[in-house]
């Protein structure tokens, strides 16, 4: 019984995600799980996943948020559109310029936040107006479209199927390879631990975990294979999520983020440069906003003045739904991914069900509140 409870607690958000998905599958007569909709889920929420990963780092430093990300997406997109369409700059050069602009914006905001200690809320609120304004100036209020094909190939296409046929074999193959890599890494980790005589989780639970994760991966790629295969954007998300999951959980810098959020004074007295951590958080956030801009303009096939509106709220919401603490120091990339997908499923499910867009907002607001209430209450009970 106790064991069931701890499992339940550990995987609450995942269980919630499953329940919500099943609910919408039922509510939409299974349309929700059609291959095309699974594909849409990824395409529509790519930017949320990218931004939420960066937002997690900001939130970890002490519940600080970045309000400017939506505007940065718009500005960087506007610059990219102008470069590629109006000025016919080489696509790769344009991409690099966009990322550099993101970094520069991050350095600007990070400097004020980390070294002059202006509250992040204010710096990024100012940024929200500033970058949006600059974007409008650059676009002159107009939309730039369409984008060059060799740009869209990178962010808004599918990994080509080298075998042909009704089912995308390449896609399935990639799924199988990912499963094998995952299982090999797990086993190697266990062997490593066993050799050094460290404690490890029981064999049976490890095997169950491996089987479940493999099944999920395979079901997912099978679904994608029935449509157009693996979208390029999924590759980008995968890479970003994996890098950040690794950095936050395994590296010294990652540990510093958690430490600053947990107790900044103690961290400082442990010889850690806390200003630098704040700086990294906000530079990184703006950089990932630029990445999100790459994805966003590719999906819209245009750079337009309203792009990125409310993106910051989606990112912040996903973090808190995914279990990040509003006080900092607590939260994982995995949790944030689940939070973002949960939000995405609710959005998509309601759209398919034909729920009025206004009511969708109401539901999303309630879900966000409910998630945080649940988090707070479960923490209280555990004390």
């Amino acid at each position: 019984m106790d064991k069931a409870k701890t499992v339940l607690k550990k995987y609450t958000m995942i269980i919630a995600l499953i329940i919500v998905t099943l609910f919408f599958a039922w509510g939409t007569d299974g349309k929700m799980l059609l291959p095309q909709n699974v594909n849409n889920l990824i395409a529509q929420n790519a930017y949320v996943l990218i931004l939420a990963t960066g937002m997690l780092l900001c939130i970890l430093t002490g519940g600080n948020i970045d309000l400017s990300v939506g505007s940065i997406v718009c500005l960087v997109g506007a610059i990219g559109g102008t470069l590629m369409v109006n000025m016919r700059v080489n696509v790769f050069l344009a991409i690099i310029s966009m990322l550099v602009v993101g970094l520069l914006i991050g350095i600007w905001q990070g400097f004020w936040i980390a070294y002059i200690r202006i509250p992040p809320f204010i710096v990024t609120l100012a940024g929200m107006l500033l970058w949006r304004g600059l974007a409008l100036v650059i676009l002159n209020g107009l939309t730039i479209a369409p984008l060059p094909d060799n740009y869209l190939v990178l962010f808004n296409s599918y990994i080509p199927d080298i075998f042909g046929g009704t089912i995308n074999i390449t896609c399935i193959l990639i799924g199988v390879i990912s499963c094998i890599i995952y299982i090999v890494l797990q086993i190697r980790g266990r062997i490593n631990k066993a050799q050094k005589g460290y404690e490890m989780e029981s064999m049976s639970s490890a095997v169950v975990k491996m089987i479940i994760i493999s099944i999920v991966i395979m079901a997912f790629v099978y679904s994608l294979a029935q449509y157009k295969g693996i979208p390029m954007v999924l590759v980008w998300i995968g890479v970003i999520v994996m890098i950040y999951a690794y950095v936050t959980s395994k590296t010294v810098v990652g540990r510093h983020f958690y430490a600053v959020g947990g107790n900044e004074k103690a961290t400082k007295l442990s010889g850690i440069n806390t200003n630098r951590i704040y700086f990294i958080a906000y530079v990184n956030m703006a950089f990932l906003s630029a990445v999100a801009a790459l994805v966003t303009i590719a999906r819209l096939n245009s750079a337009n003045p309203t792009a990125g509106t409310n993106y910051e709220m989606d990112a912040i919401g996903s973090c808190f739904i995914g279990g990040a603490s509003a006080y900092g120091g607590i939260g994982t990339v995995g949790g944030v991914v689940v939070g973002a997908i949960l939000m995405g499923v609710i959005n998509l499910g309601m759209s398919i069900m034909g729920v009025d867009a206004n009511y969708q907002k109401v539901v999303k607001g309630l879900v966000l509140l409910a998630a945080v209430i649940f988090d707070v209450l479960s923490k209280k009970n555990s004390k």
Partner: protein
Amino acid sequence: MAKILLEMKNITKTFPGVKALDNVNLKVEEGEIHALVGENGAGKSTLMNVLSGIYPYGTYEGEIYYNEKLCKFGNIKDSEGKGIVIIHQELALVPYLTIGENMFLGNERGRKAAINWDETYGRADELLKIVGLKESSRTLIKDIGVGKQQLVEIAKALAKKAKLLILDEPTASLNESDSKALLDLLKTFQKEGMTSIMISHKLNEISYVADKITIIRDGATIETLDRKKDTITEERIIKGMVGRELTDRFPVREEIKIGDVSLEVKDWTVYHPLYTERKVVDKVSIKVRKGEVVGISGLMGAGRTELAMSIFGKSYGTNISGSIYINGEKVELHTVKDAIRKKLAYVTEDRKSNGLISSNPIRVNNTLANLEAVSNHSVIDEDLEVKVAREYKDKLKTKCPTIEQKVGNLSGGNQQKVLLSKWMFADPDILILDEPTRGIDVGAKYEIYCIINNLVAEGKSVIMISSELPEVLGMCDRIYIMNEGRIVGELSREEATQELIMSHILKSSSKGE
């Protein structure tokens, strides 16, 4: 026999997995000062929380009689309504409100929609006079010292018409003269009929002020000593608390050869970070040798912590001047990182806000100051981290279920051990320990002393800042006495006595005026 004001009968309180209180009984007579003592985690604070309604009726077993009536408090308001007021160890004052506003917080004068400020401040000034605090009630809390804040808390309790005052370690952050004043104030109130329950670790204060002493150990009442019947000595109380005679409160240090000077600080001057014209440390010169424990004694606010922190990578103060020599070589320590690299460690007096990350497990706290040692190309080897944390847990005998336990859930003594583990793992040669035994019980203190002895036996140098004179005398080879930012005396272990130290401080104070 006087009337029994409060009787707590067979109180049992269980938390998930732990029985915090087990059939505790407490009888308090009207008009007495009743001390509650016990090791950390013995259940004193839990008992007081039951009494004041923080743990409401129904969440515990047993009965509370107050004025011979059975009480079922649902919250703090209920107990305060009966005149039971608790003053917590961590003061609950709002820094940016005035003394008067704080005193009547939640108990405002006038009507709900219109506070009567004249009455508020008038009444506040009257009460401040009673507690002997010479401040205007319109002063902001942040502008007065901790000692005065404690008095404000008491005045606040009086404003609630307290009949039974509960003080949880009221003198924990006060210096000796402020403590004495506070205790005398309690005695004055007693003459006027006030009943007090005082939780304290400071045995000398208890024997000074208490009429009766109830000893709690492991969630159960052990005994109640009565000044009229029993002879109360510190040894007697300690015996009750730990269940054994502590034949020696300080472990014997084996003869250690004291080596060369490892750290020398010359003409160290530091100014206050905000009020930059104020000198906090004034031309201080100290040194410590290998294998030596050097004490820095002085009153609260003497500048000891500021001295230590400014040496430790300039983590305090501005406009710092002076020079530092480590092993005879002049060094510049601009950041904490520099200091750690030069094998210096500073173990803070304030483990909660400056030392530990309470939301993180022991393992993470243990390695925070030396993550390089458990990482490979800045990737953390978590398995190695687990091993390190286990090692220190065993070495320092930290009591915890696992090393994944959140530090915030440990008792003070065990937190202190985790903090020491953290800095020992940073592998320093010179350790500055700031109040290493503050707020921890006698048994844990002894263990901390043993750890200090082991450190110097390994040839390390220890600077110990402490406000407890017996501790300084019992542990240090040499003692610097600091007052008003200056070193005002230096005594060897043989010549030092409590009286001599105090007289150095007092003499230098009068000179400064």
